[in-house]
């Protein structure tokens, strides 16, 4: 019976106007990976921030390694106890080196100077312990891929002898290969006796590493137990409070005529002679590894990146697209991969975001026209209703919405202008399971209305569950086309790894 | 007993008051006491030239008030030499109910509109140091052109005595477009017409002695034989650069304008041969006298009085300290 590393009992936390945590409990053992699950807003982050000392609890008991915590816990104390959090939004100084970041706040000094040599040596040593041997400690963190940055964060946590590690959405920005690598590290840490809390929305991958699970909903503790004792449906039901019979709803719709044809598109190294068609009544999915060129293809179609050659034909008419402005005006729109940075203006209100690409509709009087508030209000109202966006009001900052609702705002902007083709790049990244279903249902609605839908997704179950047809890309080319109803992950992976010719 | 104490106190008060005005020319023009409001607008607040002018005017005002008049003078000067700000000050003076505006104009024409408005309201304009092209009630100023000629002749004589007959003379000016400096330059330049001396292009220091010093350094490095500064800061900075050059064994002949402690020190140190000292105090006093005369009914008739410059060099610098 291994003892508990952390117990949290009867934790309550209230923010002005909102009860974030109501009598929540958590029991974490050493040498165990516990999944902390719940929808966005369930209170998972708040609970972990209390554990790491960023927030103080209003009431309740925390015991770490058998010792009860008297009074408030601050970040330094939490660190001294061996608690470390790896945040979802990576918290590294992009301009500093790997070693600098690992030793930030605890730099080693010898003879009045920074002991860079020793810090570099220890950094390399720590990374090696995680099985990473080719990371230069002098490399600037900003130049690393997100996956490697995450490795550095994990190594940093270990450097301060973290015995309790909290990982918040660690896999959302990683490629599949990097996720595999990260799982290996998690298993090693577990073997070393570290207690790990793992927060993620990617439920399908949990079974690789998770031992125990705790589920929260609306600030309350729902249940906990061994992961193997739950079915996926039970987990989802506990998270959402209701049954979700179909995680990946796919409506059957008659395939109609061709809407969009892309012919022989070339754009740099990542998009080479790509051709495809999009039909009414069909969701076209793009699968492939990170670096396959899917995002680049979509950006070229949308005009965000310049293309070298190729034609884009919409409803039979060849389009000239030199910028997103051209694409939007002619009916092709994109919901980008990086929602917070490219999809929305997070500091602007919801209203302003929805209105932004639609000002030509909202303003009367051409270029110098003034904004017609009524038209704008109606547009926002319509978007809110048809997509059931949960918001306190249209004036609040878009950045304060949950991931799912943010994505709905992005879609609302495009729906307002009767676009012909909507491209979704990673439509449900960072969104919880219930909200994901809502997005899928919106996609189905679009399909039914005859709007052309293209989705790019790295989540295999998602792309296989929602698309009617899948194109696989590798190394800038389309390498295969499959019917999701009659294919397997392995087949898709075969096409995705067909690197083929090395000739440039 | 009480009367004697009171008289004694009065005597003490008068002595104190008189000693406070000890540095002014208390020779007020005898006559009926007058009561009016005056706005004094100089080019800026910082240049010692304006401060002297203002202080002399204030002393004169105090003298008249002591003799029974009620003169209220407000010093309105912009932070820096700036035409737009000067116009604002004129408008403020009108709004404040001033009956007389004593002003040193940055530029001959830029304030004309504002000044015309004042005249239309019945306000009388008295120019000090630098008039505008609009006709005023009186002008008390240095004849800058004549002063420039004086400076030029002084320098020419020094150069002749030293056997220097040709070369470039560097000009460190203050701000472009200021009439007084323009006249000082023109007067100076006229002396060297037809000689083998060439006047370099005018460098503008904006009256900042640090800038002037760097400009002078560069001119010296470019081989000038002499430097002429057109105001206090320009002269001051140039003299410092000349002193610097002297340490390297170069002799540069420098003359300039405006009395200040620094320039006096430079004359004593030898790097500044001479400066033209204006009489800002005379300008201030004459202007106040003019206000009183006008209030008493006299028609000033647009009189223009040259308040004079003195050449201050090593021979007479002690008198000016």
């Amino acid at each position: 019976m291994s003892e508990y590393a952390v117990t949290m009992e009867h934790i309550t936390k209230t923010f002005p106007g909102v009860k974030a945590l109501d009598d929540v409990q958590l029991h974490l053992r050493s040498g165990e990976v516990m999944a902390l699950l719940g929808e966005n807003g369930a209170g998972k982050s708040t609970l972990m921030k209390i554990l790491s000392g960023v927030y103080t609890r209003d009431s309740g008991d925390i015991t770490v390694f058998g010792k009860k915590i008297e009074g408030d816990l601050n970040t330094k104390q939490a660190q001294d106890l061996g608690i470390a959090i790896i945040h979802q939004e990576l918290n590294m100084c992009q301009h500093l080196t790997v070693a600098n970041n690992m030793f930030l706040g605890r730099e080693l000094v010898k003879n009045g100077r920074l002991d860079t040599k020793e810090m570099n040596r220890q950094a390399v040593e720590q990374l090696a312990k995680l099985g990473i041997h080719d990371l230069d400690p002098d490399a600037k963190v900003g130049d690393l891929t997100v996956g490697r940055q995450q490795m550095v964060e994990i190594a940093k946590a270990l450097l301060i002898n973290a015995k309790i590690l909290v990982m918040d959405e660690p896999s959302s920005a990683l490629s599949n290969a990097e996720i595999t690598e990260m799982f290996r590290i998690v298993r090693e840490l577990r073997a070393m006796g570290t207690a790990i809390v793992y927060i993620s929305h990617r439920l399908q991958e949990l079974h690789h590493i998770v031992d125990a699970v705790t589920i929260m909903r609306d600030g309350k503790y729902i249940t906990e137990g061994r992961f193997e004792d739950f079915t996926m449906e039970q987990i989802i039901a506990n998270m959402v409070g209701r049954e979700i019979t179909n995680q990946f709803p796919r409506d059957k719709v008659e395939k109609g005529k061709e809407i969009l044809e892309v012919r022989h598109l070339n754009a740099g190294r990542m998009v080479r002679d790509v051709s495809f068609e999009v039909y009414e009544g069909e969701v076209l999915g793009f699968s492939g590894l990170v670096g396959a060129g899917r995002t680049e293809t979509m950006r070229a179609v949308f005009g965000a990146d310049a293309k070298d050659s190729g034609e884009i034909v919409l409803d039979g008419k060849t389009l000239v697209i030199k910028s997103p402005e051209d694409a939007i005006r002619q009916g092709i729109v994109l919901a980008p991969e990086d929602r917070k940075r490219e999809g929305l203006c997070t500091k602007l209100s919801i209203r302003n975001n929805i209105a932004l690409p639609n000002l030509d509709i909202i303003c009367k009087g051409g270029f110098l026209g003034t904004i017609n508030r009524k038209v704008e209000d109606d547009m926002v109202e319509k978007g809110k209703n048809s997509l059931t966006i949960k918001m306190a009001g249209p004036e609040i900052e878009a950045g304060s919405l949950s991931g799912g609702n943010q994505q709905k705002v992005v879609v609302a902007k495009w729906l307002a202008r009767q676009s012909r083709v909507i491209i979704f790049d990673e439509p449900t990244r960072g969104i919880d399971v219930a909200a994901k279903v809502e997005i899928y249902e919106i996609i189905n609605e679009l399909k039914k209305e005859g709007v052309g839908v293209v989705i790019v997704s790295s989540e295999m179950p998602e792309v296989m569950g929602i698309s009617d047809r899948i194109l696989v890309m590798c190394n800038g080319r389309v390498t295969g086309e499959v019917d999701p109803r009659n294919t397997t992950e392995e087949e898709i992976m075969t096409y995705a790894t067909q690197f083929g010719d090395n000739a440039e | 007993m009480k009367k004697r104490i009171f008289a004694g106190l009065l005597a003490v008060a008068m002595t104190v008051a008189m000693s406070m005005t000890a540095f002014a020319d208390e020779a007020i023009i005898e006559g009926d006491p007058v009561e009016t409001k005056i706005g004094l607008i100089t080019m800026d607040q910082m240049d010692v030239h304006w401060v002297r002018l203002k202080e002399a005017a204030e002393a004169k005002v105090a003298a008249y008030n002591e003799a029974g008049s009620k003169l209220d003078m407000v010093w309105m000067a912009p932070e820096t030499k700036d035409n737009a700000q000067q116009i604002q000050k004129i408008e403020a003076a009108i709004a404040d109910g001033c009956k007389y505006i004593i002003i040193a104009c940055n530029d001959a024409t830029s304030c004309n509109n504002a000044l015309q408005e004042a005249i239309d309201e019945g306000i009388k304009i008295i120019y000090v140091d630098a008039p505008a092209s609009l006709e005023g009630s009186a002008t008390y100023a240095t004849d800058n052109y004549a002063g420039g000629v004086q400076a030029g002749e002084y320098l020419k004589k020094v150069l002749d005595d030293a056997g220097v007959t040709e070369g470039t003379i560097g000009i460190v000016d203050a701000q472009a477009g200021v009439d007084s400096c323009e006249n000082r330059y023109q007067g100076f330049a006229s002396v060297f017409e037809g000689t083998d001396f060439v006047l370099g292009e005018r460098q503008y220091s904006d009256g900042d002695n640090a800038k002037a010093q760097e400009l002078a350094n560069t001119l010296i490095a470019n081989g000038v034989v002499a430097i002429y500064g057109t105001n206090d800061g320009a002269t001051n900075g140039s003299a410092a650069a000349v002193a610097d050059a002297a340490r390297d064994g170069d002799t540069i002949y420098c003359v300039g304008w405006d009395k200040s402690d620094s320039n006096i020190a430079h004359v004593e140190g030898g790097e500044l041969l001479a400066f033209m000292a204006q009489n800002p105090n005379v300008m201030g006093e004459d202007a106040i006298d003019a206000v009183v005369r006008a209030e008493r009914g006299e028609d000033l008739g647009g009189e223009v009085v040259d308040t004079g410059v003195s050449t201050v060099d090593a021979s007479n610098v002690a008198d000016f300290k």
Partner: protein
Amino acid sequence: MKKNSFVSKYASVLTAFGGVIILMIIFTIMNKNFISGSNLPKLIRSICPYLLVGIGQGIVCITGNIDLSIGSVLGMSAMISATLICNGVNVILAVIIDLIACLAVGCVNGVLVGKFKLPPFIGTLGTMTICRGLAEIVNGNYNTGDIGNGKLQTGFRDLFYYGKVGPVYFGVIVALIVWFCFNYMMNYTRTGRHIYAIGSNVDAARLSGVNVFKTTTVAYLVSAFCSFMAGLVTMAAAGMGSMQAGLSYEMYGVAAAVIGGISTLGGSGYLIGVIAGASVWAILQNGLTLANVPVAMRNIIIGLIVVACVLIDIMRRSGIKIGGKK
């Protein structure tokens, strides 16, 4: 691999020094006197005030902030020291009092920006106006008189401006010593590391235990110290205190820092670049005058060259980025 990374790491600095060399060649062609024995040492000396304010502004920029009060503190420094000396205070004591006053301003800036989280633009704009006012009233709204020729005064003037050893002015050596000390701080001490960190990602820094308030204040104290030194240089050069001293110098500081490769967004840049940036500025002033470029054109040309320097740097930076990731 190693050679490549040196060049790419210091690229912005190398570009700036390249600019210095190109400008020197151009100006020498336009007027031989540019590199003459009478011009060159003075030119190098004229770099010092720009270098000093560039160091201060540069370090504040690396923290992601800005210091608009630099010029006013410079003026205040010149006026306080000169006024005290002219009133009979011992030169060394006057300098010490002056130093304390300037550092106090640095603390105020640190508290406003670091503790009360005022946007640095606003906070230092406030101290800028206040300090300029102080500079003006210290001597009753007059510029000071000459500081005199006593032994200490002459020594002061020589140390900061007039004295030289061989062809090199003392002032240059003093400025380089200041540069050396702060360069050491930035590259070899914890404080320096923290300065880069809060400019790069202040949240990450805070979560890693960096004292953001303390680090912000250190940067502003350095800036105040540099302005103090620059004020002494100005005062030594003129032999008196001028209320106008230092006007616009905060902007020259930005120019020196930015031309030298320091980003106003924070987190990057090297102090050695400021040497190049300050040099470019001084060379332009001196060279354009020597080349007899009409006065009206000078400001335009200086502005164009500064914009060009920054554009080249931006283009180079974004060029590297595109080749990099996904």
